[in-house]
């Protein structure tokens, strides 16, 4: 093949203009229409020379200025290997070190965040898998948003400041571990950035596009909630761009698919799901862990293999410690001496060579018979909790699946959604609470942070702490809300009375326990539903929660109500007075309180309401 410089008749040069001039000169000596071969040769020489010249010109300074959509052009050039090779390495199926920030922020980062919450903390990012450094792209995007001059005379409503603030906040949200994370807040920021009128400007839109590609790639799995919106907005999945799709975009689309895979695995294939759950949980410990891993390792190995080949980005949402532990265990068992290594490899091959469910049936029939007799018993003895998780699916919260299953204490809104779901019967979401009752939201966020601090006892315990605390806050809130809302007060009173009557039917002692705020025995569904409706209504009144704890107050009742109550409770004055102070027989205490509420409730006048408020409000 002749050198392009020979064809063009010029000495090798780094000057693009010289190449263009030579090409133009030669082109005029020929007619492309009648001499296509000659033109083809000239054109190829021109393209090659232009490439060489551009490389030559770019070599002294850095060649890394190519952005997201310049990447493939660069990759064709041999010398741009540095960025090109990295770009090509990204979609490879096996990601040895997934780009993931450590789960716990480093101390320095936490301190920095506390000192100056407004300034974004620079989290040391692992080497980018796809693109040029994120900092640069983000800064460029922001600078552009700030500096871009609005066209003179065009009535464009551009608020570049707002968009760049939102971008900064979004980056902080994804990368900084210290601030409270919330997908609702994230989506609000995404919408703010995408809804900015400045997005009509192509230059700005492209910068934002790069910003998002960058933040999504580096922020996995935290950035997952914005995937669909951003992919849809920028048409990244449009088939028209398929052949020239930048590696970063392919990676993001892969991630979007893998995320659904993770979500769907909850219901589709329980064996894979169980393996996935093992990989998401902390590594097993002790002897029981080793024994368990002996049985589970082939399946986990198979699952990891499947992930590596088909869902590479799903590896990022595993517990990395656990992942490494399992890999080590698998390796150890492969290398184990006779007979364990041979046995393991046989099982492993069996599972790998067949469809997974068939292999599962086979290994079940092989293993279950001896194990059913003694093994399961021993196994349960060693690790009763884990055996429960092996044999049965634990009921998951009935919540529409919006994104990746989020581990507790990662996403504040996600956790609050779960808690509120429990208390409101599915009516309240964290997003709604934030809108209708900001004070309550702030209070719950504080409870969440406090519970997060108790994680050393295990996430489940910490979550229970959060549940209890939230319950207290909500009950207290209801007490405060009824002092403002009469309709709510009457309904609450009716509900409280029914509750007392129900407890009384079981035993007077239980009723007294309910009176002192304890929950004992069972509660019928209707009452639970009514209770969650009351809590929901209370939250929606916008009443701020009280600081501190709930104290029972004193009250005075008008004499006519007392009379009525005494009659209803079938008690004489002395017993009634003692019962009001919770003295005397439990039956009397119960009846006195029920009678009083009853008497106040039927009046529905000002005095009655005042009494109820004093009784039930706080």
């Amino acid at each position, binding site marked *: 093949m002749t050198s392009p410089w020979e064809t063009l008749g010029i000495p090798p040069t780094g000057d693009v203009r010289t190449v263009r*001039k030579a090409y133009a*000169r030669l*082109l*005029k000596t020929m*007619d492309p229409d009648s001499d296509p071969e000659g033109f*083809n040769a000239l054109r190829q020489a021109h393209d090659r020379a232009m490439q060489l010249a551009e490389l030559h010109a770019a070599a002294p300074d850095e060649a890394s200025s190519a952005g997201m959509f310049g990447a493939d052009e660069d990759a064709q050039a041999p010398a741009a290997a540095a960025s090109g090779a990295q770009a090509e390495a990204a979609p490879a199926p096996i990601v040895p070190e997934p780009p993931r920030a450590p789960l716990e922020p480093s101390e320095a980062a936490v301190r920095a965040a506390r000192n100056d919450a407004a300034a974004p903390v620079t989290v040391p990012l692992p080497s980018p898998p796809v693109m040029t450094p994120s900092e640069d792209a983000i800064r460029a995007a922001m600078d552009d948003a700030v500096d871009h001059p609005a*066209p003179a005379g065009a009535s464009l409503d551009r608020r570049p400041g707002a968009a760049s603030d939102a971008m900064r906040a979004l980056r902080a949200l994804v990368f900084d571990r210290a601030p409270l994370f919330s997908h609702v807040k994230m989506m609000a920021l995404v919408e703010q950035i995408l809804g900015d009128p400045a997005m009509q400007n*192509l230059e700005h839109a*492209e910068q934002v596009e790069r910003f998002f590609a960058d933040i999504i790639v580096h922020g996995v799995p935290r950035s997952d909630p914005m995937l669909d919106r951003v992919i849809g907005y920028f048409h990244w999945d449009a088939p028209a761009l398929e052949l020239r799709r930048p590696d970063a975009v392919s990676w993001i689309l892969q991630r979007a698919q893998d995320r659904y895979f993770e979500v769907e695995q909850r219901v589709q294939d329980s064996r894979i799901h169980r393996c996935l759950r093992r990989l998401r949980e902390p590594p097993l410990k002790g002897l029981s862990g080793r024994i368990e891993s002996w049985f589970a390792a082939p399946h986990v190995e198979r699952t990891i293999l499947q992930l590596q*080949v088909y869902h590479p980005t799903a590896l990022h949402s595993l517990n990395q410690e656990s992942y490494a532990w399992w890999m080590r265990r698998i390796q150890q068992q492969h290398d184990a001496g006779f007979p364990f290594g041979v046995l393991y490899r046989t099982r492993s091959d069996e599972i790998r060579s067949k469809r997974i469910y068939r292999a599962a049936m086979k290994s079940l029939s092989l293993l279950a018979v001896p194990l059913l007799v003694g093994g399961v018993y021993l196994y349960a003895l060693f690790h009763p909790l884990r055996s429960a998780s092996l044999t049965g699916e634990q009921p998951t919260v009935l919540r529409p699946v919006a994104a990746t299953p989020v581990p507790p204490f990662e996403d504040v809104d996600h956790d609050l959604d779960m808690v509120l779901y429990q208390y409101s019967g599915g009516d309240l979401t964290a997003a709604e609470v934030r809108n209708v009752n900001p004070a309550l939201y702030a209070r719950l966020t504080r409870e969440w942070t406090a519970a997060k601090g108790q994680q050393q006892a295990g996430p489940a315990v910490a979550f229970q702490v959060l549940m209890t605390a939230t319950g207290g806050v909500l009950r207290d809130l209801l007490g405060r809300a009824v002092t403002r809302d009469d309709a709510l007060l009457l309904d609450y009173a009716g509900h409280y009375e029914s509750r007392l009557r129900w407890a009384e039917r079981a035993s007077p002692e239980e009723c007294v326990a309910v009176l002192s705020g304890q929950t004992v025995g069972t509660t019928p569904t209707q009452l639970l539903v009514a209770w969650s409706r009351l809590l929901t209504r209370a939250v929606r009144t916008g009443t701020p929660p009280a600081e501190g704890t709930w104290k029972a107050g004193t009250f005075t009742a008008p004499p006519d109500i007392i009379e009525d109550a005494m009659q209803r409770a079938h008690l004489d004055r002395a017993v009634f007075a003692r019962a009001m102070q919770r003295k005397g027989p439990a039956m009397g205490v119960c009846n006195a309180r029920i009678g009083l509420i009853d008497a106040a409730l039927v009046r529905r006048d000002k005095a009655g309401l005042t009494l109820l408020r004093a009784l039930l409000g706080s």
Partner: protein
Amino acid sequence: MALFVRGRGGTFVIVGIDLGTTNSAIARWGEGGPELIPNSLGDVLTPSAVSLTEDGAVLVGRAARDRQPVYPDRTATAFKRLIGTQKPIQLGGTAFTAEEVSALVLKSLKADAERHCGEEVTSAVITVPAYFSDRQRKATRRAGELAGLKVERLVNEPTAAALAYGIADREDRDPFLVFDLGGGTFDVSIVEIFDGVIEVRASAGDNRLGGEDFNEVIVGIAKERLRLPLGAAHPKLREQARAAAERTRRALSEAEAATFDIVWQDELLSTTITAEQFETAAAPLLDRLREPVLRAMRDSNLRAETLREIVLVGGATRMPVVRKAVTRMFARFPNASIHPDHAIALGAAVQAGLRERRADLDEIRLTDVCPFSLGIEVMTRDAHGRLHGGRFAPILERNTVLPASRVHRFQTVHAQQRKVQFEIYQGEARLVAANIKLGEVEIPVPPRAAGEVMIDCRFTYDVSGLLEVDVIVPETGETRQLVIADQEVDPGEAEARRAALAELKIHPRDQAASQALIARAERCYEAFIGDRRATAGDLLAHFEGVLETQDGHAIAEAAAMITRKLDAMEGERYL
């Protein structure tokens, strides 16, 4: 379209044609520059409309378009959108294809050029949207042939516009973007000019986006407000609504609000549409303008701020909403200095001048690109060794400079395979199912083990954007060429169709002006009610009376008077 006309000095006179969705124009390379040729009515734009009169004569141009609301079943417009398909166009009970109707327009333009130059015109170069597919290009070429023209070359419309723009001062220009939004198609090209070489760096487009779609938006608004029973049951109403929408849209280019008037069941329905309402309703269309622009910029590796300027071409870019959208996209005002309706025809004339090697164009060279990827369907082997069919293997990547020729080598999949089928596709999707199939070639191969037989597939794309596929088995020397079976017409049939077209009686040229006036008056009669309808009826009756006298002088006088009155009645006329 270049028309080779032997002029007085023994040189070739060159003419170019823009075959548009709404309007067509014809131009030639004159003394020192391209110039437009007027039609029989004295206009340089001829509406792309064809109508068949009751006595079987063909009307082309303004007369045909004015007849559309009155005789929707005998008239065709916007047929460029159907070119390359076999969808029949009904003209008074006779079915035509889009290329046949286009041929009638080309024939009329050819007659105009012949009359203007005084010579016979035999060969041509036609402009097509850059994003036209191979099939649409071939159909356009056949339309030229049906009109009795040898189609020398097809030129992309934005390229033609860039030629007209760049030829004016012949200066070097940094890359600029041609934004061509016509009646039915949208194209974007990025063009650079250096040392007399006009180089198209990238093209992209949308074949189904143009002024007609914006008309539909207005019809949609009006339909909802006025509860118009639009549908197949009332073709007349639909055509009237379309014409009214066109009028409203043009008025909106000048004013902040415009009325949409339509007569339905002898009742005048009217609604006012503001520019803002229009912009809101047209937002989805405006959004579709972005994708091709982005793609062209990415393919040419350019950023918005490095573009020298944005050149607007095509009638629909007159709309303020489009200009606003462009201004927002690039954060600067576009260049609207060239005539949006004339530029493409003028550029075609320049190309024609190049084609016949005029001395004053000796220093100019034009290179164009193919705007889409072309390739074949292949099977691929995955990591597990399984075969997956239906994958697209591009051979010519999009935005390859033309003419281009590329060979890729493929191998057989199965052992003892006797033949290999190559299916040719156009598109950008990874799976062929999402791309457009252009044709297929089958070639016999010697039976061997899988993967042992090599087959070379060569794609040759010429400057007109027409594709040739050659498949060669080097081992046996067997070769095959692409045959597009469902589109290719056998020569006998082509001859028959040409003869059938030739038999159609073209309305006499010298009566064209009268015909156009009658069509217009009839349209006015339908479009108005009350006094104005009565006036239009009176004028029509008067003019028909004068025509019967066959007194040339009186006819001309009456025509002038009626045109004046109709102008006053209708407001401004549009083309």
